[in-house]
C-alpha cells in the first residue's frame, strides 16, 4: 500500500499500523500531522468564540441566578458586575409569575416566526430558480432583489418607511378577498398574510443569494443526463434541483428562523431591550435565557425533522 493510498483511505490507517508498526515509528503519522494543522487552523476561531461568545454566555447564566448590579468593586477598585446575593431561580419565577407582557410578546414572536418561515423559504427558492433560468436582464433582477438586505437597516430603512407603506397591498383588496371567501378564520389568516407579503418579500434577499450560489454549483451534466433519459423540467426540479439544494434549504430554514427570532423589531427582543435601558441586568439575562432555551428546543425540532431530508453528495 503506497502512502497516497493511505491518505485516500484514512479509515484503513489503523489496520496498516497494526500490521506494520515499523512504518509509522518515526515522527508524526500523516493523520496526526493533518490533525495538528487542523487544530492550528481552528484555533483563532475558537479563541475568539470563547472570549466573545461562550464566556459572556456563561456570565449571563450566572447573572440570571443572582441579585446584582454594575459598579466599582470596593476590594479591587475595578469596574464590573457585582453580585449581591445568589437567589437561584427566583428571577425566572418572578418574570413568569408577574410579567404578563413578557409571555404575550413571547408567544407572538414564536407564532410569527413559524407562519412566515415556510413562505420565505418557498418564495425565495421560487425566485432563485427563476433567476437561474435563461432570462433577460437576470443580472439586474438579481441585484435588485437583494436590495432590501442592503437597505433594510435601522436609520436608512426608517427613512424609507413612507415609501414601503405606499407600496403595501391596499386594504380594500384584502377585505374584498375576505368577503369572497366568507370563512372567518381563513379570511383573517389570508388577510394578515397579504398584509405581511411586503415584509416577507423584504426578508428573502439573503435566502435568494444562498439558493442561487448553490444552484450555480449544481453540475450541468446531471441535467444533461436527465434530459437524455427524457426527464421533463418538473421531474428535474424534484429529482435533481431540490435534493442537490437540500443542505442549503436546511441552512436557509435555520437562518430564517434565527433571523426572525433575533430580529430587533420583533416584540420579544424589543421587550428585552427595554430591560437593557432600565439597567435591569438580572431580569434581562433571565429573560434572554428563557427565550434562548425555548427557541433552541424549537430549532432542535426543526433541525431534526429537516435533516432527514438532506442529501449530501458523496
Amino acid at each position, binding site marked *: 500500500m503506497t502512502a497516497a493510498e493511505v491518505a485516500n483511505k*484514512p479509515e484503513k490507517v489503523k489496520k496498516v499500523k497494526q500490521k506494520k508498526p515499523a512504518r509509522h515509528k518515526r515522527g508524526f503519522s500523516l*493523520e496526526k500531522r493533518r*490533525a495538528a*494543522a*487542523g487544530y492550528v*487552523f*481552528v484555533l*483563532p*476561531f*475558537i479563541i*475568539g*468564540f470563547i*472570549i*466573545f*461568545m461562550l*464566556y*459572556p*454566555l456563561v*456570565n*449571563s447564566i450566572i*447573572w440570571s441566578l443572582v441579585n446584582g448590579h*454594575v459598579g466599582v468593586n470596593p476590594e479591587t477598585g*475595578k*469596574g*464590573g*458586575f457585582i453580585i449581591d446575593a445568589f437567589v437561584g431561580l427566583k428571577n425566572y419565577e418572578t418574570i413568569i409569575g408577574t410579567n404578563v407582557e413578557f409571555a404575550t410578546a413571547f408567544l407572538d414572536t414564536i407564532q410569527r416566526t413559524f407562519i412566515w418561515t415556510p413562505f420565505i423559504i418557498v418564495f425565495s427558492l421560487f425566485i432563485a430558480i*427563476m433567476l437561474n*433560468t435563461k*432570462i433577460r436582464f437576470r*443580472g439586474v433582477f438579481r*441585484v435588485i432583489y*437583494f*436590495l432590501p*438586505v*442592503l*437597505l433594510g*437597516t*435601522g*436609520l436608512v430603512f426608517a427613512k424609507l418607511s413612507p*415609501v*414601503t407603506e*405606499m407600496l403595501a397591498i391596499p386594504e380594500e383588496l384584502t377585505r374584498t378577498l375576505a368577503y369572497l371567501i366568507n370563512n372567518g378564520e381563513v379570511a383573517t389568516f389570508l388577510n394578515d398574510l397579504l398584509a405581511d407579503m*411586503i415584509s416577507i418579500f*423584504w426578508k428573502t434577499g439573503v435566502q435568494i*443569494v444562498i439558493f*442561487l*450560489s448553490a444552484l450555480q*454549483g449544481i*453540475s450541468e451534466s446531471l441535467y444533461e443526463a436527465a434530459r437524455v433519459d427524457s426527464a421533463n423540467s418538473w421531474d428535474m426540479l424534484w429529482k435533481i434541483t431540490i435534493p442537490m439544494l437540500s*443542505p442549503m434549504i436546511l441552512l436557509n430554514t*435555520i*437562518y430564517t428562523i434565527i433571523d426572525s427570532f433575533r430580529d430587533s423589531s420583533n416584540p420579544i*427582543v424589543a421587550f*428585552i431591550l427595554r430591560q437593557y435601558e432600565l439597567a435591569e441586568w438580572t431580569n*434581562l439575562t433571565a429573560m*434572554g*435565557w428563557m*427565550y434562548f432555551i425555548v427557541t433552541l428546543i424549537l*430549532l432542535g425540532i426543526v433541525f431534526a425533522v429537516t435533516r432527514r431530508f438532506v442529501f*449530501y453528495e458523496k
Partner: protein
Amino acid sequence: MASIRVGKRIVILHPGTFFKYVFMIALVCFTALPLEFLVVQAFKPLDELFIYPPRFYVVNPTLKNFSELLMAMDGSTVPFTRYFFNSVVVTILTVGGTLLVCSLAAYSLTKLPLTWKNQIFNVIVATLMFSAPVTQISNYLIINSLGWVNTYWALVIPKLATPMYFFLLKQNFDSVLPNQLLEAAKIDGANEWKSFWKIAMPIMKPAWSTVIVFSFVANWNDYSGPLVYINREALKTLPLALSLLQGGLGQVARTGAFNAAALVTTAPTIIVYLVMQAKVMKTMAHAGIK
C-alpha cells in the same frame, strides 16, 4: 402566444415566459422604488423635501445637500469624511479577518481529522440563536478590561469569530469541495496550508464572496457596536454620523445633509455587492473536477 416586433426580429412570447417577466418586474417595484426614492431625495432642494406625500421625482435637482454635508457638521468637531474613513478601515479589517478566521475553521472542521469535530460544531451552531442584548453588557466589560474602549479593535476583534459565517462556509465546504481534489494535491506534495489556500479557497470563491457581501453589509451598517464602544468623535463610524444628522435629543435635524449622507452611506454596500456578485455567479465549483 403573443409576438412582439423588436426592429426586424420577431420575438415570440410564450404565456409562461410572459407571466415570468410580469411577475419579476412587479417584484422589482417593491425593492427598486425605495432605492430610487433614496437617490432622488439626496438631490432634492429643501422645499421639495417637505412636500407631502413624498414624490418619486425631483423638479429642480441640486448638489447643495452634498456641499452642506461636506462643509459643516457643526454639532461635531470632525468632518464627515473622517466618519467615512473610520467606517472603511473598520469594515475592511473586520471583513478580511472574519473571512480568514471563519474559512480556516470551516475547512479544518470539514476536511481534517480532528477529534471533537461534531461537538465543536454543535456548540457553535447552538450559539447562532442567541440574540445580542443578553451578552452585550458582559462583552462591554471584557472590552473595557482589555482597554479597547475607544479603539478600532473594539469594533473589529469581537466580530472575527462569527458563528453564522462559519456555518455558511461549513455547509458549502461540505457540499461543494470534493475530497478527491485535496487528496490529489496531497499526492503532489502540498501541505495543509497550501491545500487550503491554493486549492480549497479558489474553489470556494462563490461561498466566500457571499460571506464578504453579508459581512460587509452587517459591519458597514452596524450601529449598536460603535454606539457602545466608541465615544470619541474622531473614531465614530457612519451610522453614528447619520443619527447625528437626523437630529437626536437637543440637536437640529439637517434634512438636506441627512439625505445626502444616507445616499453616501448606502452606496458602498451596493457597489461591493455589484462587484462581488459578478464573482459569485461564475460557476467555479466544478472547474477542478472533470
